[in-house]
């Protein structure tokens, strides 16, 4: 199959709000295009990491190629590019969209449009994709397809009257989706004769093949032996293999030409050389300019990651190295904490990314971790004119050296049913939100627009949002930029010793409140000792809150019954085990989960 008719290719993705059925529809498309038999199907073919399956979200973009024999008798090649479904991965989403010519919008027939639906659709429209809607879950008793169709037309402004009414779960209406892919999504353009211009939308590391670049060929042709140049990073290598994506496997082919989606391997050792969004061209015959939209991915959220057992530091370093091979957006550097010993300051795209990495470290590498409270990157403008980017609160210069500080701000869109507008606005207010406006989507739902400091939403905002709207609010955000803000470092002193791992940056106005809650929380987390332990919160050396862990008065077992010594010993062993999971700070033992306690300070959860 050396020559593929460009007009028979359809490159598309599926966009949806979480849980609206994107992965299930992807499975049905793959299944019904006959690439796989039902027996070969795992429940969700595209999500192949355990973690993704458990969380029901897709972490890494992936692609699959299938062949569809349409009602017109022709065979079409479908390249379905899966996009991550979370705001943390917005940039990856945008690059995946750029690799497509069209998108299927999946909307839940019962829930209708959600904030994330809107964000994803606008992102797709921004990339000039042709979007057609499908209404999923029509077999639910609460389904209201006609209402949802009208909502799509009113709110998004795209034609929805002939949207397929489907149930991806039960395989209803999939034929119609396949036909619409052929008719509503345009064939790719571009000439195989032009200089090579290919967009990297993902890359993975394989220990045999090195880096595998996932790309969409916009112009030109690439094959074995082509000397390729990554235009942003400047890396060059000779192509070893090209191919396309079977379901869960790489299938080599002769060449990839304009309009095709596939992979390239070229003995590249470092994932950093193949940044998502970069343009691959022919080093000997380069294109005149790179594709638009490339940007360097920046870490938005930082936290300290330490091994619970100090001796496991080398294991943690190895694990991070390996994870980074497959996740270029993770970065880390060694740091030491007086409280926690040797560890790493790690940067993540967002809190979900952080949680995923943390879970993978614990699960796949069997590490027991202590993580410190996540923080954002602050800009510290010093009196000497320097500007430093602060990722670790412990490195904050002396207040006398600080001219002013800036913090990152996001634009947030929150979709909520009208009964909860009040409580959600209250929440945004508490989190220092700046109200921008509100639009009614239909009678009972509204889209609230706010600007919020990123550091107010990285902890528990999402949980708070859900709990204050009984799960109905949905939320999406975009980084807007930096703004000057009155920030202070809140220090925690345990038994009069400052515990660096518990310090965090907070807005001056909420310092007292946060300090008080933090002390209360720690008081519950720290077990009684032989002596009384004061827990204090301080700003710039001034104590603003205090709690006391009273001295242990009693730790004694009752009756030693009938000589049942084994039972008594088990109790003592349990006690001893508990101690092992503590961190010694000065002469105080602190349970590891205390370091995470700052994460859950919202009273109303």
């Amino acid at each position, binding site marked *: 199959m050396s020559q593929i008719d460009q007009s028979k290719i359809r490159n598309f993705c599926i966009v949806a709000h979480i849980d609206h059925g994107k992965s299930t529809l992807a499975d049905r498309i793959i299944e019904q295009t006959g690439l796989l038999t039902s027996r070969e199907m795992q429940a969700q073919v595209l999500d192949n990491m355990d973690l993704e399956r458990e969380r029901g979200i897709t972490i890494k973009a992936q692609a699959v190629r299938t062949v569809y024999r349409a009602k017109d008798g022709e065979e079409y090649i479908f390249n379905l590019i899966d996009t991550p479904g979370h705001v943390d991965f917005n940039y990856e989403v945008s690059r995946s969209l750029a690799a497509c010519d069209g998108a299927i919008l999946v909307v839940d027939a019962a829930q209708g449009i959600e904030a994330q639906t809107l964000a994803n659709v606008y992102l797709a429209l921004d990339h000039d994709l042709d979007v057609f809607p499908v209404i999923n879950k029509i077999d639910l008793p609460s389904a209201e397809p006609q209402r949802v169709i009208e909502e799509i037309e009113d709110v998004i402004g795209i034609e929805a009257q002939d949207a397929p009414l489907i149930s991806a779960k039960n395989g209803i209406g999939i034929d119609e989706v396949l036909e619409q892919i052929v008719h509503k999504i345009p064939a790719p353009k571009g000439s195989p004769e032009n200089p090579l211009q290919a967009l990297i939308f993902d890359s993975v590391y394989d220990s045999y093949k090195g880096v595998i670049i996932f790309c969409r060929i916009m112009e030109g042709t690439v094959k074995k032996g082509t000397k390729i140049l990554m235009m942003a990073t400047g890396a060059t290598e000779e192509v070893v293999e090209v191919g396309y994506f079977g379901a869960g496997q790489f299938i080599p082919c002769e060449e990839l030409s304009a309009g095709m989606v596939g992979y390239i391997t070229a003995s590249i050792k470092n994932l950093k050389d193949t940044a998502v969004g970069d343009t691959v061209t022919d080093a000997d015959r380069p294109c005149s300019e790179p594709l638009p939209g490339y940007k360097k991915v920046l870490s938005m959220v930082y936290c300290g990651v330490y091994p619970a057992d100090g001796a496991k530091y080398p294991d943690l370093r190895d694990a991070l190295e390996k994870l980074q091979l497959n996740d270029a957006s993770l970065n880390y550097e060694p740091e030491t904490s007086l409280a926690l010993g040797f560890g790493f300051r790690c940067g993540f795209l967002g809190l979900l990314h952080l949680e995923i990495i943390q879970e993978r470290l614990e699960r796949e590498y069997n590490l027991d971790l202590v993580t410190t409270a996540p923080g954002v990157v602050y800009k510290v403008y010093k009196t000497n004119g320097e500007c430093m980017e602060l990722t670790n609160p412990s490195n904050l210069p002396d207040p006398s050296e600080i001219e002013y500080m800036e913090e990152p701000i996001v634009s947030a869109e929150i979709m909520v049913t009208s009964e909860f507008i009040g409580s959600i606005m209250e929440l945004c207010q508490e989190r220092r939100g700046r109200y921008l406006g509100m639009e009614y989507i239909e009678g009972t739902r509204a889209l609230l627009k706010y600007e919020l400091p990123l550091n107010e939403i990285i902890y528990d905002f999402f949980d708070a949002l859900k709990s204050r709207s009984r799960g109905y609010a949905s939320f999406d955000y975009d980084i807007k930029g930096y703004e000057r803000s009155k920030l202070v470092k809140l220090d925690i002193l345990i038994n009069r010793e400052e515990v660096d791992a518990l310090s965090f940056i907070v807005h001056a106005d909420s310092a007292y409140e946060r300090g008080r809650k933090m002390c209360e929380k720690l008081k519950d987390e720290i077990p009684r000792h032989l002596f009384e332990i004061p827990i204090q919160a301080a700003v710039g050396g001034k104590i603003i809150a205090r709690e006391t862990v009273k001295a*242990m008065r009693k730790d004694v077992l009752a009756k030693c019954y009938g000589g049942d*010594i084994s039972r008594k010993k088990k109790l003592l062993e349990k006690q001893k085990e508990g101690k092992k999971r503590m961190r010694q700070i000065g002469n105080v033992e602190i349970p590891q989960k205390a370091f995470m306690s700052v994460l859950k300070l919202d009273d109303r959860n």
Partner: protein
Amino acid sequence: MTETDLMLYLHIPFCRKKCNYCDFLSGPFSPEVRRGYLDALKTELRARCGAVRGKRVSSIFFGGGTPSLLEEEEISGLMEELRSAADILPDAEITIECNPGTANLEKLKVYREIGINRLSIGVQSADDEELTLLGRIHTWEDFLKVYRQAEAAGFTNINLDLMSALPGQTLTSWMNTLEKVLALTPQPVHLSVYSLILEEGTRFMEWEQQGKFCGRWALPSEELDREMAHETLVRLKAAGYHRYEISNFSKEGYECRHNCGYWKRREYLGLGLGAASLLGAERFDNERDIKRYMADPLEGRQSQKLTRREEMEETMFLGLRMVEGVSRKEFQDRFHVTLESTYGAVIEKNHRDGLLLSDEAGVRLTERGMDLSNYVMAQFLF
């Protein structure tokens, strides 16, 4: 007591009604089950005592459950069986646990006749409201009656079990119980005073989880609990009792030999449902399911051979329960290493923290160390 001595424990798992705080292996059973159980117990007794022939029995303890629930002929039948199966020393301490709601003069007289010389009466409180809360089947008045009967039957060696830190208890109400006990004539020669611990699976735990222990029925704080314990110590000392173990007080010479045996790791053979034994360096735990136990009382016994280190650990955490503590010489004679070389650092640390006293004779807990005994003992585990 010598190396070849043996202690016997017999478990009588029957109660008229389960107490609200109790998580022991016990409960109400039908008379048929009771008869079947006693037959099984005798079968086990014959077989196991046969296996330890040559050892002389220095103490016997009928524990429960409620051993005083047994009819006169049932308890004397058991005793007869014991006398024919085991070599019981003439001065052996023979104790029976006794619930004031189930004992009477006839029973107490029989106990004396068959050689039982020590009574352990579970009175728990002198306050009828507290007794109801605990789920006890008797009043303070019931107890007084039994106490007089015990004296009439000729018992002089009597222990009373008391519980402090009960829901709703104040220092005053607790001291009131204590004063009523001390006003008895004659004064009991032995007192076991435990502060309440909520155990899994009890109604008390259930109530606590349902938040029922609040307001007037609030559980005493750790601070109040210890205040009660310390006042108890002072008051009992003044009344002529000495503390010889964390929770046990006695008049001079009336320490419970059986319980001291547990703490000194003497050999003991436990008979009956779920009973534990220590024989040589091996611990045993009997079957805990009553149906299975009755089907074959010799089946289902778990055993664990203790390593040398485990024996050391036990020596420490059991020995430290006693006020006299652990003797350096005995430790060295037993393990052929010094206490210092094994536990030097732990002893030093706890000495510094004021929890342990250490001198040439040995190590023992301070009063504070007794309050925090678990904290100290856990550190003696390897």
